[in-house]
């Protein structure tokens, strides 16, 4: 009898218990389901064009620009700030990179493009640090500082060349944009896939061992294996899709686009930054309770300024991809990108109340935003209408965040 009494509630909660054992966030799961629903719907509406290799390849490239900046926006929003200037900073650093590459350094020299990238990253970092200084040390709210930055750096982007477009870029540099030669081919894509799967296996084994060493609970074996299998299937599926897209009039597979690889590097780096460094821990602590962070001896101002610096550097990374893809520097690059980036972070589960957010979530958010956008392009919806939709999605995402936080146990 007592056994029966216990059985019922346990069975009722079977699903949530399974999820908990697998340590899957329900919110993340909801996002994945939403993404799949959006994809299936768009594929249906576009008569199968959406799921073609070509479209998925372009989607991957476009998502990486937004995704890279969204990972930085996660940190910014987690520590209770906002950055409205990311699109303009992208435009300005992009213009400076293009100008240096084409007009200042000698085009064609092997050191040209690495040096221009370095200059761009440093410039992005300085801009971020400068904004962070006003916010953290001078007490100007980030909303105001970065709104001013939105205006200033868009103007600065124009001033670099008085509005003229700079082109063409270095041949090698163009690879970074994911264009015609901007992918790593079928063989390297598979090697990459194998490396990723091997890494997942090793990571999983190492963490199991250290859990056991400290006497902590480990996930049941079958769940672990199931998760690994799903991960491996996703990686292989992605590589197959990217390989199915051929270079024009040939049978040569494109493989994984370089911008996606850059994004993966950024994601890994940002994930490590948030999970295993003091800096990441402090960013979350500040978001949870700034006063407590200060009382715990954390240099709140310094950390806040650094968060903006990281954001600035990531804008420069996005600027590199954008200029390489355009094969030019145009002062309108990144216009309205801040909306997509903030929306990606928020859709990806970053709470505007601060203290909560994940890097992976932001990438999912970026893919969702970009899927909607490019799906609407495929459907022939005007850019004016697309803006209306994207704006609506942003409000809905924040509303979802509010409701979700209210109903949380």
């Amino acid at each position, binding site marked *: 009898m007592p056994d029966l009494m216990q059985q019922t509630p346990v069975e009722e909660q079977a699903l949530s218990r399974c999820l908990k054992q697998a340590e899957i966030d329900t919110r993340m799961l909801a996002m994945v389901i939403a993404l799949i629903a959006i994809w299936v719907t768009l594929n249906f509406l576009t008569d199968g064009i959406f799921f073609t290799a070509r479209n998925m390849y372009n989607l991957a490239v476009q998502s990486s620009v937004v995704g890279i900046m969204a990972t930085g926006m996660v940190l910014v929003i987690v520590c209770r700030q906002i950055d409205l200037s990311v699109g303009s900073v992208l435009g300005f650093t992009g213009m400076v990179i293009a100008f240096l590459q084409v007009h200042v350094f000698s085009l064609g020299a092997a050191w040209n493009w690495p040096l221009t990238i370095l200059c761009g990253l440093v410039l992005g970092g300085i801009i971020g640090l400068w904004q962070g200084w006003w916010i953290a040390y001078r007490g100007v709210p980030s909303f105001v500082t970065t709104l001013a930055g939105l205006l200033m750096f868009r103007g600065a982007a124009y001033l670099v060349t008085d509005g003229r477009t700079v082109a063409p870029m270095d041949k090698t540099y163009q690879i970074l944009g994911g264009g015609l030669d901007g992918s790593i081919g079928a063989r390297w894509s598979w090697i990459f896939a194998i490396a990723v799967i091997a890494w997942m296996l090793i990571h999983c084994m190492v963490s199991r061992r*250290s*859990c056991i*060493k*400290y006497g*902590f609970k480990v996930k049941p074996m079958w769940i672990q294996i199931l998760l690994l299998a799903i991960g491996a299937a996703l990686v292989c599926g992605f590589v197959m899709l990217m390989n199915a897209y051929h270079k024009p009039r040939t049978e040569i597979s494109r493989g994984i686009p370089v911008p996606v690889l850059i994004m993966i590097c950024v994601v890994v780096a940002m994930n490590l930054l948030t*999970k*295993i*460094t*003091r800096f990441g*821990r402090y960013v*979350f*602590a500040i*978001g*949870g*309770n700034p*006063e*407590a*962070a*200060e*009382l*715990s*001896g*954390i240099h709140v101002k310094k950390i806040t300024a650094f968060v903006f610096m990281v954001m600035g550097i990531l804008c420069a990374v996005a600027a590199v991809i954008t200029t390489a893809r355009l094969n030019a520097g145009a002062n309108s690059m990144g216009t309205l990108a801040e909306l997509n980036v903030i929306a990606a972070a928020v859709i990806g589960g970053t709470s505007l109340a601060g*203290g*909560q957010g994940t890097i992976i979530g932001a990438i999912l958010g970026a893919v969702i935003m970009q899927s909607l956008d490019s799906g609407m392009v495929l459907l022939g919806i005007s850019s004016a209408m697309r803006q209306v939709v994207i704006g609506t999605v942003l409000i809905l995402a924040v509303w979802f965040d509010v409701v979700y936080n209210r109903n949380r*146990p």
Partner: protein
Amino acid sequence: MNQTPLVEMINIHKRFGGVHAVKGVNLDLYPGEVVGIVGHNGAGKTVTIKALSGAIPCDEGEIRISGEKVSIRSPRDARKYGIETIYQTLALADNLNAPENLFLGREIMTAYGTLNDRAMENEARKVIDRLNPNFKNITDAVKNMSGGQRQSVAIARAIYFNAKILIMDEPTAALGPQETAMVAKLIKQLKSEGIGIFLISHDLHDVFDLSDRVAVIKNGRLIGTRRTCEVTKEDVLGMIIMGKLPETA
């Protein structure tokens, strides 16, 4: 007692704009001693001890630690002198779990310079078990914890790092009877280890039970400090309410 006091706070003043919250308070604390600080709401108890913990540096006055004049301008300074504080507001980051809060600002790192979460959890479990054996869900976010559990986390944080001076601002306000008894036991034990404790409480019974001396603050002024064995609760109540010193026998 003719040893040097662990802490001397001399003529501490603090103003917030026009509000003169603390007006020349003097407090001292000896090793192995518990000094209770009592007073009405808004008397200035919290502001006074925050001058010592570095949370609100004082405008005027002198602080000496073991006889040496020090300048405490931030919580980092205070930690340097072995001062640990349990704040009335607990000062926990709600989104982090208990071990993360416990080690905030003083994380255990691995040999590679990364956070060692497992080791921190292990250590946290040990110290929290000592305070509150029923408290098992320490890896939940603090916001999902009960008031008493949160308080246990704040207490654990203050005692883990071998403080010399402990400031407890109403440490048992949210605790159940069993946990309060645990904290009382803990205070006695820390005392026997030679740690000096400032204990702010509204519970005169606890104050009389635990402290060697009691200091009464009223409207930002120190009314007086008395040995608890030499006064009655009525005397102290008179000091708190009327600001009247008891007739010394």
